[in-house]
């Protein structure tokens, strides 16, 4: 994986990797991708993917109102709030 690709993936992952970190990450990911490349040789023609290991039915429940977190609790761990909302940098 070259440096430009590491930076592209880093941006998608919302990670501001430093210069040295980018180089090390590229080397490590290249080794790991070389290892996982073995899967290409496995014949999976007509094989359904497994998204969950145990087959479960749909989980239905009655559509009734239940209590949820109160606003103060929902905000309790937030780095910045105004008491009613999360505060984020302005986006407009």
């Amino acid at each position, binding site marked *: 994986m070259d440096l430009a690709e590491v930076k592209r993936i880093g941006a998608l*992952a919302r990670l501001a990797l430093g210069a040295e970190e980018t180089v090390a990450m590229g080397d490590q990911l290249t080794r790991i991708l070389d290892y996982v490349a073995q899967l290409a040789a496995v014949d999976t023609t007509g*094989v359904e993917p*497994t998204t969950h290991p145990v087959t479960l039915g749909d989980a239905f429940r009655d559509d009734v109102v239940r209590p949820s977190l109160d606003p103060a609790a929902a905000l309790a761990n937030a780095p910045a709030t105004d008491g009613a909302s999360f505060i984020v940098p302005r986006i407009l």
Partner: protein
Amino acid sequence: MAADSDLARLTLHEAGALLAANTVTSTALTEACLARIAAVEGSVHAFAHLTVEVARAQARARDQTRPDPLPPLWGLPIALKDNICTRGLPTTCGSRLLANFRPVYDSFVARRLEEAGAVILGKTNMDEFAMGSSCENSALGPTHNPHDLTRVPGGSSGGSAAATAADECLAALGSDTGGSIRQPACFCGVVGLKPTYGRVSRNGLVAFASSLDQIGPITKDARDAALLLAVIAGHDADDSTSAREPVPDYVAGLDVGVAGLRIGLPKEYLSGGLDPEVEQAVGFAIATYERLGATTVEVSLPHTEHAVATYYLVATAEASSNLGRFDGIRYGVRHEGHDLLDLYQRTREAGFGAEVKRRIMLGTFALSAGYYAAYYGKAMAVRTLIRNDFTAAFERCDVLLTPTAPTPPFCLGEKLDDPLTMYLSDIFTIAVSLAGLPAVAFPCGATKQRLPLGAQLIGRPFDEGRLLAMVHAFEAASGQGRMAPAL
């Protein structure tokens, strides 16, 4: 009554019997564990956070009211891995990013433990967000193996395994995504059970890989694992992947024995490259079961060699999505930026450790446009083949027996700079997780240097009871008592 210093060495069921007979108090048990923690924690570092005052208050409350009959864990001090949400108590997942996080609700298992009367001593150390096999990837520093302080306790539930092995608690809960209960239990010489996917609610477990994560017990013997699993298992309407399967009486089922059982020995797990001492210990477990009337049959799991590659695509893809929530807005340590995107990037860059970033990167890559089909899609298909291997094997046997880890506990620092080698230390536990099956790691020997060695039993879905009965039979027949660390 036993001397106070001995109380911390008890199992849950031994301590529970003394409490029921009124010969010991919860406060005495709790103080014994706290004394043991004071004596050894400086060298083991099994805990991320101690909740001493909470534990003392809970113990006093348990001693003041004694419901009849006593709930199953009444007054018994235990520890929880630090990725299991506990209301008002630190839950940091071994991450700088969650250094100040205190959940505003309890996980399903924490509520079950409270109803059962347990006393919570603290939260145990772990690889950051459960990503690791050595407990070295913690922002709080590594945990040490109580049997040899220069060695790792395994991971990611290394703190839970080390605390239980070192008698700092009577038992603990861990979580397992690719072996994170079983491998540390093996390295520390205790019993660790990963339940069937869906057996235990994941509600309130900080998510790593949602199609793999399960909470399970780490205990001093099989009876304790049965006791603890019975408390935490069962359907939870708040986890849509939790199973409606009835929960059997695991404790009552412990004595069914092993006569007539067919034990499958997967040839891919037992041939070539196995450490000779691991091989010898697994051989002893097999011989013990044969002596007790079980038969063995060789089986094949032909896609075993692809399990690690499959896992590191599936688990990292899910992780890259799950860890998207750590953006410095709703919780966690925020690092300000000049705009919202910059805030996200700085927060995550500063908050996550190297292994977590590596896995987020790998998972993001595997899910990205142009690579999805070749990596994530391919891995999901191979996962099906790995599941099918197990289904076919279980047509010829009742359980599978394998090593838990390919080597004895390795040294701190030994594999830290080589992620791929570290990943391969989970080679015997990962396929089971991909298939969603229950498996238990149990001690069955020691190296010449007195390091614990263990085996793994793998069952059909929801066959935890049989696995625990088999470990119980081994414990009774082997004549090996629990190996206590010389701490």
